[in-house]
């Protein structure tokens, strides 16, 4: 599985993409948001970072008895005064384990969610300071001209060169022990802190560290997964031909039962027409079928029932059960349901098979004239077919 890290710029117009697959890594700088998808393989893990100044991190505890909605209502009522925008224009994410709430403007997060849902990937969106967060340590990472601050308690922020010192002063007032470890990705003179206080760190190593820790840390992601056609198609790796084929199969599956119903209706109509034509052949003045069985019974009343019985040849089925070549002769009396079978010198094995077949069938031996002469069987059997 490929892992992608996307660092989104402060204006949400461009991003920097890092990809990792086994030992290979790739970097694409300044990629337009609309083009990101072309750099991402489906079914990968995508971790996107938003500059931390776009996200407000607040400690808040959700009571066990509180539902999600109740917690959100309480949270917004407690922090209403701190919010610049209307409550309804913010999206809230919450980590139970860390008692950490993330608040982000919907106009920022919703388009991102929409875009990332089309990737067909496992996506997470975090504030950027999560990348360099250290336990019991304040850190500041200079990345793409942004000073990303991560505090030891899990909160964070992002400042820019023009307000860096004001921000440091403000933080120092609030946090007396604030002594951040400054980190830069490459050696540069354009830093607001002393070079001697900072250390150079490779972003790849920060990514690898983050990958190994993020799963167990239960960090609140701002990504909201939604099923989209484009995302699903990408996940299934369907190209245009596969898509057309799949649509054709689905259409067939939907049409098959409808076609089946139409065919059955057609056959039914054909049977009804044939039934009517039989009646019309018997009586050209016949008009319509009301109850076909009753109407036919009425016609049959004209015949003496003893004279024209329906033909029942089931009795012949018993000859099928017995290997016919072994029977010397037989007589079937259809009126009395009796069968006489004659055998001429058949082996004991063949006779035993025939005997077993007769026992398994619906017949009763009423006369057995079979004689065993030197291991061969000859004579006759009279069977009566028992009625069902």
């Amino acid at each position, binding site marked *: 599985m490929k892992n992608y890290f996307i660092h989104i710029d402060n204006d949400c117009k461009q991003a920097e993409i890092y990809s990792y697959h086994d030992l290979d890594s790739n970097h694409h700088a300044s990629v337009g948001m609309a083009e990101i998808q072309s750099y991402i393989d489906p079914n990968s893990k995508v971790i996107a970072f938003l500059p931390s100044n776009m996200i407000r991190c607040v400690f808040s505890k959700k009571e066990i008895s509180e539902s999600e909605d109740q917690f959100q209502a309480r949270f917004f009522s407690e922090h209403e005064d701190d919010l610049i925008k209307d409550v309804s224009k913010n999206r809230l994410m919450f980590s139970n384990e860390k008692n950490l709430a993330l608040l982000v403007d919907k106009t920022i997060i919703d388009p991102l969610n929409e875009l990332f849902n089309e990737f067909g990937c496992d996506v997470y969106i975090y504030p950027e300071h999560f990348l360099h967060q250290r336990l019991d340590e304040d850190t500041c990472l200079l990345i793409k001209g942004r000073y990303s601050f991560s505090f030891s308690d899990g909160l964070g922020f992002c400042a820019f060169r023009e307000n860096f010192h004001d921000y440091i002063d403000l933080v120092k007032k609030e946090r007396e022990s604030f002594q951040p470890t400054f980190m830069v990705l490459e050696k540069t003179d354009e830093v607001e802190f002393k070079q001697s206080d900072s250390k150079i760190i490779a972003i790849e190593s920060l990514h690898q560290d983050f990958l190994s820790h993020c799963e167990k840390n239960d960090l609140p992601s701002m990504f909201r997964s939604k099923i989209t056609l484009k995302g699903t198609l990408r996940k299934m790796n369907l190209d245009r031909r596969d898509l057309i084929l799949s649509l054709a199969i689905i259409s067939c599956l939907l049409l098959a*039962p409808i076609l*089946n119903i139409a065919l059955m*209706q057609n056959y039914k109509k054909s049977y009804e027409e044939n*039934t009517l034509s039989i009646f019309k052949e*018997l009586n050209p003045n016949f008009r319509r079928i009301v109850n*076909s069985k009753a109407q036919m019974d009425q016609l049959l009343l004209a015949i003496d029932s003893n004279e024209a019985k329906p033909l029942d040849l089931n009795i012949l089925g018993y000859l099928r059960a017995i290997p*016919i070549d072994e029977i010397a002769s037989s*007589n*079937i009396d*259809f009126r009395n349901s009796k069968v006489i079978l004659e055998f001429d010198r058949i082996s004991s094995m063949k006779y035993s098979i025939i005997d077993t077949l007769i026992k398994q069938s619906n017949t009763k031996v009423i006369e057995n004239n079979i004689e065993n002469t030197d291991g061969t069987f000859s004579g006759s059997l009279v069977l009566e077919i028992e009625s069902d």
Partner: protein
Amino acid sequence: MLLITLSSSIFSKTNQSRNQLKKAKQDFEYVKNGADRLIGFTLASNLKGQPNEVRRIINEIASENDLGEIEVSFDSDKMFSTFTVDDIDQIIVFINQVNRKIGFNIRSLDYENSNKAASVTVEFEMVN
């Protein structure tokens, strides 16, 4: 939800159509059976006293079913047909066709197996 409703409706419609088709088929078979009996009865009545016509029809049936030479004889209200067969199905087809075409019912069947071929004599009763 729409898919479930649609599937349920198709399933119910399929069942309904299947039952209607089953009933139409059963009705047709019942009526056809009855009509065959009526026609057989009429035919048998018409053919009474016409042994040559009966012989002609029997020979026609035998030749249609590759039964080869067939002997036809009469004794008061009985008719006997003797022919050779390779399997039981030929006998069943013959009896059915005689019943359908001339309305005679089978009374008994004699089967003789020799080394060369099996000979069958079928006794029909001529309906009065």
